[in-house]
């Protein structure tokens, strides 16, 4: 077109000359917040990161697993036995139901075993030697992390096999042993040296003799507590820990039909459910407080009830005689402490199993100067180091929840500290990242998708065998579950900011996954991008005046 009319006819797109950025009083910026799942994971997993990979399915599963094992070498185990505080923290729980993180973790762990995926190649040897006492989750985790850093690691354990409580505490119906063995083998394949049936009694001597530069002690808590029950001799009384240990070693304890388990923790449930499988037709759990106050995990309680375990709340065993025990009714006082009522009842009992707590055998530490023991546990600092330089400790023997996840977390944290200690550069504390709360989520953008229910073993087999009760997810349901993740606090490339900006002031890189950017020459600072970000990964900050 020649000689277009002046002023009334304009060239297209000429408004690019008008920089509207100077209208702005607030500017958007992308942030990375701490997802509640990561925050809640004692093992320190970057759950959101591996879910992100898993969402792609196919090749994404291996990428997801590799991200996962950076913090936890035992996904298949953890996917079975973890009480998943991550799911308790999951924001999606406030929308419909928490993402089944644990089931996806198990799926990935099983995929790895099925496909023979191997752990990362360790770094170049440092020549440093570390002794790990205890082949439980904590020790294994520590050994794994140290090995990756190029240190030589020797694990010593008094038991016949590695695994600690994973093998000798957790019944097989919760954790199939072949799975455990597979994941352990993978760690030892890294060059970690395992010495079983080798109790360590004198730590300084062991270190000197082995020329170890540092030691991580994680001997667990394998000593079952006892309570005196009058007349106890008459009937068969044993403690849960040794019972479970025995079962693992192939013993078939004669429990009889009527088994009374005394205690309210997970161990009590393990004992009762194992007893059921050993022929006890109607195990009873006796607990001094109410169900609400029972420390055991809800999921386990439900499974136990499904298996016919019965409960006697607010009860204590005052005496046991031949074929029976005497229960006394309790009531909670104002402080919530159970008080005897004098109200007695006799129930039949062939066996009484005590599950009233476990302690660590701290003989190993007692002579070490500087080591401080309180409440039957060893005190450690932020770095997991005891009062004795170079001696680190973790797992059930230090103050913390006694779970596999916590143990694994201890192990890797200790490994980081030991590595730093060996290098003379103290490990940096975790950066303080703001937590991504549900309020920052814009739930509208997430379509409704209730979680997948994992299949379970049928009742008959649950009553008679130690087969695994809870089954894994198949590919499609694992994918479904992974994709339920809201990606709290971190961009997942949904293009929403790019799409909703009325001023076209969000720049999108060509490829997916690459970060978006704000075109501050044109952004007017309306804040729609932040408000409409599904996962709360954009915040508005005032313009510097």
């Amino acid at each position: 077109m020649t000689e277009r009319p002046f002023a009334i006819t304009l060239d297209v797109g000429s408004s690019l000359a008008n920089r509207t950025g100077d209208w702005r009083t607030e500017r958007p910026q992308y942030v990375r917040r701490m997802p509640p799942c990561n925050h809640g994971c004692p093992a320190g997993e970057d759950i959101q990161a591996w879910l992100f990979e898993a969402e792609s399915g196919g090749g994404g599963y291996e990428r997801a697993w590799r991200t996962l094992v950076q913090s936890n070498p035992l996904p298949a185990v953890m996917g079975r036995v973890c009480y998943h505080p991550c799911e308790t923290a999951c924001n999606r729980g406030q929308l419909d139901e928490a993402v089944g993180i644990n089931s996806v973790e198990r799926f990935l762990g099983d995929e790895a075993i099925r496909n023979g995926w191997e752990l990362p190649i360790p770094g170049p040897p440092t020549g440093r030697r570390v002794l790990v006492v205890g082949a439980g989750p904590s020790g294994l985790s520590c050994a794994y992390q140290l090995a990756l850093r190029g240190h030589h690691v020797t694990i010593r354990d008094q038991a016949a096999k590695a695994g600690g409580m994973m093998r000798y505490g957790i019944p097989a119906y919760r954790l199939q042993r072949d799975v455990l063995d597979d994941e352990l083998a993978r760690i030892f394949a890294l060059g970690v040296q395992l010495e079983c049936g080798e109790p360590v009694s004198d730590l300084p001597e062991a270190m000197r003799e082995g020329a170890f530069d540092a030691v991580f002690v994680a001997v667990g808590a394998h000593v079952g507590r006892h309570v005196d029950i009058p007349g106890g001799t008459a009937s068969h009384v044993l403690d849960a820990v040794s019972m479970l240990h025995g079962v693992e070693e192939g013993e078939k304890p004669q429990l009889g039909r009527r088994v009374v388990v005394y205690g309210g923790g997970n161990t009590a449930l393990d004992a009762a459910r194992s007893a059921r499988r050993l022929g006890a037709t109607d195990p009873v759990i006796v607990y001094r407080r109410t169900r609400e106050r029972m420390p055991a995990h809800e999921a386990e309680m439900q499974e136990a009830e499904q298996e016919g375990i019965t409960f006697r709340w607010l009860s204590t065993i005052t005496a046991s005689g031949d074929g029976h025990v005497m229960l006394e009714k309790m009531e909670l006082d104002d402080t919530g402490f159970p008080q005897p009522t004098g109200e007695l009842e006799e129930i039949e009992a062939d066996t009484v199993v005590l599950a009233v707590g476990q302690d660590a055998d701290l003989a190993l530490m007692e002579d070490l100067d500087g080591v401080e023991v309180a409440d039957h546990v060893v005190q450690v600092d932020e770095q997991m180091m005891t009062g004795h330089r170079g001696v680190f400790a973790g797992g059930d023997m230090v103050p913390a929840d006694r779970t596999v996840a916590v143990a694994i977390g201890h192990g890797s944290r200790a490994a980081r500290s030991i590595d730093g200690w060996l290098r003379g550069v103290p490990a940096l504390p975790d950066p303080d990242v703001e937590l991504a709360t549900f309020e920052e989520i814009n739930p509208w953008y997430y379509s409704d998708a209730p979680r997948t229910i994992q299949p379970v073993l049928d009742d008959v087999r649950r009553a008679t065998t130690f087969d695994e009760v809870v089954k894994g997810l198949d590919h499609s349901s694992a994918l479904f579950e992974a994709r339920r993740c809201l990606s709290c606090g971190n961009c997942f490339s949904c293009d929403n900011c790019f799409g909703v900006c009325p001023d076209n002031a969000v720049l999108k890189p060509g490829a997916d996954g690459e970060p978006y950017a704000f075109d501050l020459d044109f952004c007017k600072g309306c804040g729609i991008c932040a408000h409409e970000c599904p996962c709360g990964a954009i915040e508005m900050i005032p313009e510097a005046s």
Partner: protein
Amino acid sequence: MREQLEGSQGIARTVARCRPEVVSAYPITPQTHIVEALSRMVRSGDLEHCEYVNVESEFSAMSVAIGASATGARTYTATASQGLLYMAEALFNASGLGLPIVMTVANRAIGSPINIWNDHSDAMSMRDCGWIQLYAADNQEALDLHIQAFFLAEALSVPVMVCMDGFVLTHAFEPLEIPLQNDVDAFLGPFEPRQVLDPDDPVTIGAMVGPEAFTEVRYLSHIKQMQALDLIPEVSADFRERFGREAGGLFSCLHTDDAETIVIVLGSVFGTIADVVDDLREQGSSIGVLSLKSFRPFPTEELRAALSGAKRVVTLERALQVGVGGIVSENVRSALSGTSIPTHTVIAGLGGRPITRKTLRPLFATAMAGELPEVHFLDLREDVIEREIWRASEGSHTGPHAESILRNIGIVRAEPV
């Protein structure tokens, strides 16, 4: 070849030969016969590659024309009277956007009182809308002006209004020469729009323009009309060259060269007056008549030259600027400003009242005698006025202005009997 045709049919057939691509119209007397004929030609296929759009109002008629013209289509519409006023907003828009739309205005009075007969109130009311306004003295010229209008519009990228008297011309049967298709094609050539809506070369048309540029935009449209003052005579000459007929131009003259009294008229009344003027000439009177064809742009300089020899100028017009008097006369007066030539206004033929030789002869006699008032209303029914004025003014005073007007038309306020 000449044919005995109704004016409207002649216009329709001539417009068709200009090959419009879009015709949008809303019916209004006395324009109807033109658009009826065009719609028939489109449906029958006699007018090819043309869309006829039946719109729901004149406002939309012009709006459709605006959209079509901006898309590069040669566009035509026709209206009259109230319809032209209903278009008003769009008329300004079409000229502001520089869209070369051609429109026939079948001149008709404006209500209230509603009146379907001919005068020029409609077109005159739109004299400032930025369109070129051409007036036809007879049907042949009306036909020929439409061809020239398309040329002018497209050459300058400005809309053109061809004004022809409603009924007097639109409904009159007379011999007409319909220009041949080849000649029209050769004269017009294809439409090459100055700007066009096209995805291959997108533009933004119709921006909001502020104080920083609005004056310049207006000035440029003024320049366009000034250019038209030069182009209109050229186009008319070229037309004569090709078609062998006089048509258009800024104005045409009869016996004006040596005339003491020059009568200026617009439109079809020229014929009747020409007859009278010829008779008076035979009787030795020094009178001539000037037929103004281009009212917008107004040929100030050219008129000044043409009228310079006259002793007096009488502008006879079919519209009244209520509260002022003549409209064309005002422009004539400005053309003569600085000269001592007296100008007179004769308001005639409002709302279809016939302008006849019977009253023109005495009018011109009075004029030549130098006894014509500055503003005169031809054939005014003074008895009615007298009665009404008296009735209206009972108990109140009409005031010196009103009374001087009344004196001009020979009414001295009567006392109650």
